[in-house]
């Protein structure tokens, strides 16, 4: 049992990190009253932007500088997801478009953008490599502490991950602190709960919405970057990221808008995501694996229903979530 957990938990955590980035980003976004269904697209764009950056860098020099090899993809990723965030804000905040529709369009666009450049990047830059495999860059991203392997089970459970995994936890904790213990966080929550009141006390509603959504998108984009660079060892394959973006959005409700809870919940979901690999099915009944893959979605649905049945006041979404704010319409 102990050996099983020792093998299972690190893999669950690795699966959970992209979800954690996505859900932290989406929580910050939703706290400002923006329901961004474009997060799956943003995560794709973040991932592919990082891939493009490091692909160009790896092909331009023979000797990679470790600092640049990490910084270039990260900056590209942040820039790509920031642009997506700005697009969403421009449409929903400035132009007051419907948030659901804008989000879905962003997901269509983002997933298409990722798959297009993932599938055509080599042709577009006339490179002669057979596939996008950024193993050199990836090795910097997935480097764990050198003494981790010497510390036995403790090292394996807590120290065997690349730096982005720890960054995810740090960001989630910071977001939690920011939302609950700072004045800016209070203002942000006010904007999400009731923008009229927030406006009346002199909070710049549009600015808060812009900043929160863009920062949220940048955090979510890092989740995509982590997936490609660390989890997938720098190999891009189309649609491999799959539905994790949607699961991240579901996690926001699962954790009732709390980034610190999201840390545990993401790892739990990461575990549910791969649990089918550990339930014995026998060789001639592989089909049951497909049913076990259903578990995370069924659990989310059940949690969704249970929280709505209990309907506690403190567990409710931000009051004005999904509603555009127009001062003249008060």
């Amino acid at each position, binding site marked *: 049992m102990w050996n099983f957990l020792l093998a299972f938990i690190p893999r669950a955590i690795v699966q959970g990190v992209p979800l954690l980035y996505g859900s932290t980003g989406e929580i910050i976004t939703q706290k400002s009253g923006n329901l961004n269904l474009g997060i799956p697209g943003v995560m794709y764009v973040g991932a592919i932007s990082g891939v493009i950056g490091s692909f160009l860098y790896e092909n331009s020099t023979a000797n990679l500088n470790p600092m640049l090899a990490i910084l270039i993809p990260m900056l590209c990723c942040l820039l790509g997801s920031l642009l997506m965030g700005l697009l969403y804000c421009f449409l929903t905040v400035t132009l007051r478009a419907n948030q659901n529709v804008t989000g879905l369009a962003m997901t269509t666009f983002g997933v298409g953008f990722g798959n297009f450049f993932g*599938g055509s990047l080599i042709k577009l830059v006339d490179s002669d490599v057979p596939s996008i495999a950024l193993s050199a860059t990836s090795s910097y991203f997935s480097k764990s502490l050198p003494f981790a392997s010497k510390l036995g089970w403790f090292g394996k459970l807590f120290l065997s991950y690349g730096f982005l995994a720890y960054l995810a936890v740090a960001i989630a904790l910071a977001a939690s602190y920011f939302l609950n213990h700072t004045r800016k966080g209070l203002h942000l929550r006010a904007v999400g709960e009731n923008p009229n009141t927030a406006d009346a006390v002199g909070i710049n509603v549009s600015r808060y919405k812009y900043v929160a959504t863009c920062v949220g998108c940048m955090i979510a984009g890092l989740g995509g970057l982590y997936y490609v660079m660390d989890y997938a060892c720098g190999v891009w394959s189309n649609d491999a990221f799959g539905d994790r973006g949607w699961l991240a*959005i579901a996690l926001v409700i699962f954790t009732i808008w709390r980034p610190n809870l999201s840390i545990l919940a993401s790892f739990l979901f990461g575990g549910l995501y791969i649990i089918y690999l550990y339930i014995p099915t026998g060789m001639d009944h592989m089909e049951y694996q*497909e*049913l076990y893959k259903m578990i995370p979605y*069924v659990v989310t649905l059940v949690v969704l229903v249970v929280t709505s049945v209990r309907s506690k006041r403190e567990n409710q979404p931000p009051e004005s979530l999904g509603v555009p704010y127009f001062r003249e319409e008060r």
Partner: protein
Amino acid sequence: MNKKEPFFHIVKRDALPWYQSVGVRAIAIVLALVLCGILTTITTGIDPIEVYKSIFAGAFGTERKTWITLQNLSILLLIALALTPAFKMKFWNIGGEGQVLIGGLAAGACMICLGDKLPNPVLIPVMVLASIAAGAFWGFIPAFFKAKWNTNETLSTLMMNYIATQLVAFYTIVWEVPKGSGKIGIINQNSNAGWLPQIFGSKYLLSIVVAVVVTLLMYIYLNYSKHGYEISVVGESENTAKYVGIKVEKVIVRTMILSGAICGLAGLLLVGGINHTITTTLAGGQGFTGVLVSWMAKFNPLTMVFSSFLIIFMDRGAGEISTAFGLNHSYADILTGIILFFIIGCEFFISYKLQFRKKAEKEVQ
């Protein structure tokens, strides 16, 4: 006034005359197409006129291509129509994907399990009933939770998508032919049992006819029936609906059953009439695209014909370009995304207008 007045401010318009609002949208679409053309020229290096020519050739180049374009159009239209009544009452059903899949699965199940037991005239009605019932059931579940406990429908329908996908994946392995291949292949290839009939000797016409009929029925249902009226009232304000004695819960459940049922019908057409097989990508993202099509048409079934045409046209055209230049087919999604952004953005100029500072001062004087 010591504080500087802003350069412009935003004023809500009265309703624009229809030709102006159509004009604004047309300008947005043209701008989007120009941007798409420029983008294509940059990525592929062909000159812009050729880009539009090959987009057109991709959609209507040959007779067969035209038919496939129309067939794809009819399926997307059907899904968008299915989602429309739900949207009209502000129920964000983004579970079209799952409802189509489950309808297709039910049709496929009938074809596989009953294919050699029942003759076609009995089998096909059974398939129709099964897939409609399956789709309706898939729509009913989130609606029930929404009506009873106000569960967030966006996420519950989304989760239902993945549950349906995994169910299909499960049965794909149960029914795989040959064993170990991981796919079902063409069902009943020799007996053609359960294949929907060809009408007027064309294998493309059936789904087109169904889509036309459903469009007209949906238009009548939404605009000229009591149910349609109740849907609009619930969509505008649940409190008003309650006040005038409409049972909101009942309307939600009833509308979602209808929504799911039509999605199930689309699944039936895909499995029984077009693909003759089931895969987990049966719906191919059209459950999501349908949301956008429906919204672009402002929930009007007749306008939806044009909006779904626009999407399918670009999709087929971009497919042609990407095949010709060895690019990834997702190119279509990028172009679709750009057009959508423009259309979403242009709505602002239909409902609001900008008043610049000078003009505003004049009005004050």
